[in-house]
């Protein structure tokens, strides 16, 4: 299954599930990354650093190890 890190810049996907546990799980969902939400990858910091994702009209930057925990629905969008 693809996760957020699999999105190229400009590409969009739909959240299927969040696998992070504990506080980070709740934080990601509170930021709007709930199942069904559309997410677009907008920016990538150089050197494998953070990536910025557009979700529900806001932009949230995540580290790769956290972005990995947001799984996407199969099939491509946008």
């Amino acid at each position: 299954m693809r996760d957020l890190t699999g999105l190229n810049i400009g590409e969009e996907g739909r959240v299927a599930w969040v696998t992070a546990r504990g506080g980070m799980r709740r934080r990601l969902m509170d930021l709007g990354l709930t199942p069904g939400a559309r997410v677009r990858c907008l920016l990538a910091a150089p050197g494998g650093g953070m990536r910025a994702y557009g979700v529900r009209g806001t932009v949230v930057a995540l580290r790769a190890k956290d972005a990995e925990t947001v799984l996407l629905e199969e099939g491509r969008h946008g």
Partner: protein
Amino acid sequence: MDERRVIALAGNPNVGKSTVFNALTGLHQHTGNWPGKTVASARGTCRHNGRQYTLVDVPGAYSLWAQSAEEEVALEAVCFGGAEAVIVVCDGTCLERNLNLVYQVMEITPRVVVAVNMLDEARKKGVRVDLKALEKQLGVPVAGVCARAGKGVGEILEKVEQVLQKTPVPRRAVYLEAVEKAAQSLAADIAPWLDCLTDARFAALRLLENDPCFLRELEKRKPLSEECRAQIEKAREALALPDLSDHLVAAVYRAAEDCCRAAVTRPEDTGNRQWKIDRVLTGRVTGAAAMLGLLCLVFFLTLKGANAPSRWLGAGFAWLGEKLEGGLNALGAPPFLRSLLLDGVYGTLSQVISVMLPPMAIFFPLFTLLEDLGYLPRIAFRLDGIFEKCRACGKQALTMCMGFGCNAVGVMGCRIIDSPRERLIAVLTNAFVPCNGRFPTLIAMMTIFFAGGGLGGTALSAGMLTGLILLSVGVTLGMSYLLSVTVLRGVPSSYTLELPPYRAPQAGKVIVRSVLDRTLFVLGRAAAVAAPAGLVIFLLSHIPAGEGTLLTALVRLLSPLGRLMGLDGAILAGFLLGFPANEIVLPMILMIYTAGGTLADVSNLSAVGEILRANGWTAVTALNLMLFSLFHFPCSTTCITIYRETGSAKWTAMAALLPTLVGMLLCMVVHGIALIL
């Protein structure tokens, strides 16, 4: 007259909550365009239709399911703070995400007013918010606001009055029937025990979810009774829904989506231009160039702009000093007292102000401008990769930038870092970057020994300064890593960073605010320590000890260590006596050389250069002084701040010791190399 009614002001981070608060209360809470500016609840009062209200500015929170210190404060304020109504400020450009908090607050109290801010910005982006439809969807009053322009603020209070008179019926998010039933029945069970501490259904939901933060806040007020514990346990088992928390957020967001579908129209793909700009500003080469260029520009403007005003202030203080002397003479003050007051206290004070005020009055507005623009989170975004490799948090880049202005401010800013380990790293390493107080010393050294004066010289100085700053950033990163693998062992934690849209700064307000809030604040603090420090220095240099004075004895004592570091005893004494404020280090050194009892005037650099060279200074001495200025114990204000923030004498000592050891080591290495060459 009834007593003041308490109204809480909540909202997501960076939605202009502080701006609304300021507009309502007339207070000048510092605002900036990055999440996490408000780290503690501020209080203010306002008046509407002859009624007094106490307004509590709650720290920004994405959710009341608290994940950070600020959010815990927010939960406490909204849930247990005794507020009679809650204003939730929302960003009109991204209402859907903001509604998450609105729905959460509506579970605690029905007396909610939603203030949709930044409507002007939303309109520019083609986002239209139908306030009437929103009101209908939410069931609570909605006010449209452009807080920056001061529009619609009165309407908020109008609506607050409305909900206080007649409690509205909010349309809450709809949960599964089983969840709703379980919550209702648990609420009924615990209601007698809860005794109106907070809404029973809300508490029941949180207890079913097993939210550790809510439980902590609740038990602070009233430890859970055995009976309650059993009831909660039973209700949890009966519900048997392990993913309850997921269900609740998802339900809230479904409600928010429905709400926005009815009340908000937005064009597909807003703000594409911004991301093109951002790709440049955070790119590998372009991003680094932009960062360095901006840094260089800020320092150039600060240095170039500060020269003339510094001289004017110096001249002004000299003139005033003569008048004061005349006055004291006329009063018949004894010569010692006159000298003590004028040369000791007044001299130090005027020196600190004339050296400090102009650069700060330029640096802080420039910094605030970048802050308002929204550039700072981009720096954190761009640099996070490096900080992650050093097992620290990218937000440390922000506190580091604040440290350039004032280390005490930077240390305080570390509260935005959620992980305690990473916060401590940021606190301990903040003084590794030079604050404004150290720039004059660095620049004087560069001008006298390396770059020379004139416009070209200033440009060269700014370039060299940037080099020194890169060195300090490098050492900060190295130190962070070192701490992460030794005393503060741990792996980088998870965190999220919101990138706000760029916003045009409000130039006028920026200048007024940064001068009032930061410049005068820092200056006041520095002046408060400079006056007594002047007194101490004066006494030290006048109380005889052995053949000389206490001061010469101190210099003699420090001399061997100073020579080992390629410096001398006078320089080290200058740093020690400059503990109250870094800006007085160089004047202090000059004072020791010239054996005067007062701080020397450092505005005439060629004269300063002559004195220094006459005392055996070379380029190596100047280089070592710059290094030690970069890396030595933080000033007294910063030390006090570190103690307050960490609550530990051990960590404060560590924060003072670490940079000092690094500085001593570097100086010795440079001195050694210079001896060999």
